[in-house]
């Protein structure tokens, strides 16, 4: 397991992704995009219709988040990750569009994990519940599409030193599996 702190710029390149290992603590900076259930459904539809996407998907990192409203004087409200498995069905088409990275919480499907290896991508975990802390790393936020979806709108974020952890790396590493394996002691659930 990695466990070293790395600074990474988004959008991501293949070279950078290859330096990342499961368990690495990463400080992410640069441009990322927010999307969750509804925004993904619309993006999928746009891709299906051959429409141009509202953002440059090449090397992009998608953050699964539905932030709370921005109070006066802040660019965004609290912004912690939502559970990622709900976005699993959209991952193949997003990879095809050029996406390279995802930020969320909770394990992914086998299909997604395989695609991460195959397409040289990465899945970062952000700490669920640490939403005010994560908000502090967001310097700019702008709704770029689907304004009608409120918290689910597609946003462009500029982040600085956003604390994330590499869960699934492009070598097939899976921190959820390895971490739990390492620290679980025998509990006989069945008796």
């Amino acid at each position, binding site marked *: 397991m990695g*466990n070293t702190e790395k600074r990474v710029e988004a959008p991501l390149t293949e070279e950078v992704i290859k330096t990342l290992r499961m*368990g690495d*603590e990463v400080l992410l900076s640069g441009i990322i995009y927010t999307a969750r259930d509804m925004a993904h459904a619309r993006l999928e539809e746009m891709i299906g219709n051959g429409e141009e996407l509202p953002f440059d998907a090449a090397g992009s990192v998608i953050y699964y*988040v*539905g*932030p*709370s*409203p*921005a*109070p006066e004087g*802040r660019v965004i*409200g*609290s*912004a*912690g990750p*939502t*559970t990622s*498995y709900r976005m699993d069905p959209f991952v193949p088409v997003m990879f095809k569009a050029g996406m390279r990275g995802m930020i969320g*919480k*909770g*394990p992914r499907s086998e299909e997604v994990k395989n695609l991460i290896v195959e397409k040289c991508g990465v899945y970062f*975990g952000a*700490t*669920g*519940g*640490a*939403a*005010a*802390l994560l*908000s*502090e790393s967001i310097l700019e936020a702008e709704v770029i599409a689907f304004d009608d979806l*409120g*918290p689910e709108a597609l946003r462009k974020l500029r982040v600085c030193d956003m*604390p994330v*952890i590499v*869960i699934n790396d492009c070598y097939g590493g899976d*921190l*959820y599996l*390895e*971490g*739990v*394996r*390492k*620290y*679980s*002691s*025998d*509990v006989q*659930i*069945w*008796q």
Partner: protein
Amino acid sequence: MRRIDLREITQAVKELSIEANTIANCDLRDALTASIEKEVSPVGKAVLGQLIKNQDIAKFTNLPICQDTGFTVVFLEVGMDISFTGGIVQDAVNQGVREGYIEGNLRKSIVKDPLTSPVNTQDNTPAIVHIELVPGDKVKITLMPKGGGSENMSRIKMMKPSDGVDGVREFILKTVKTAGGNPCPPIIVGVGVGGTFDYVAFLAKKSLLRKIGERNRDPEIAAMEEKWLLEVNKLGIGPAGLGGKVTALDLFIEVFPRHIATFPVAVNIQCNAARVKTRII
């Protein structure tokens, strides 16, 4: 008879909505702080540190502790010597939620009709309101904004009576194991046993109103709480599900008599953003 203007209830619910979502309770904070010592995984320790820092930031910036400011669950214990004036209690509660969620910049996460009209109600109403009549002339309002991620990992089972205590234990461990990192561990495990299909879930939810460390008054059940908490923490899920010893901060059990033919169990999972605030009027 004491008269209470329902505007007082609205005001209290509004303030509680904002407080609950922005100011973490001391018992939770203390439990998280103590858990750093217990955690052996370095990543786990880092996550716990983030959660504590997050609570500080929320408190000083008035940002919500978590962006999912939940379904607002409100428990009202109403003294029987009270007469409310100015409308209907449920409406007063909903008005308080509306004002609190709008003024407090809390996220509105409720969609109107799940089957026919899944559009956001824009004010986080309706709240789930539980009303209980008690002796006296006071109203106790307890407000719990309940996050969707941990609610999704909660389970209910109508066991066979012969499954017994072992069946309950097995169901708790399996539910927590299956939930893994999804409900934002460290979690609090709320267990209901007995009653009916609907009531057992209420018991599980109600157990989550306890302060961390508060044991069931029945010493035998208290011992089960302690034993099963230790077992849950051997599952290895750890903070944020990344592996570690601190999976749950506590485990609460509430029981009720059961029908001879049934044995309902419910496990309601609470996340690290365990938000509960109480006020007595």
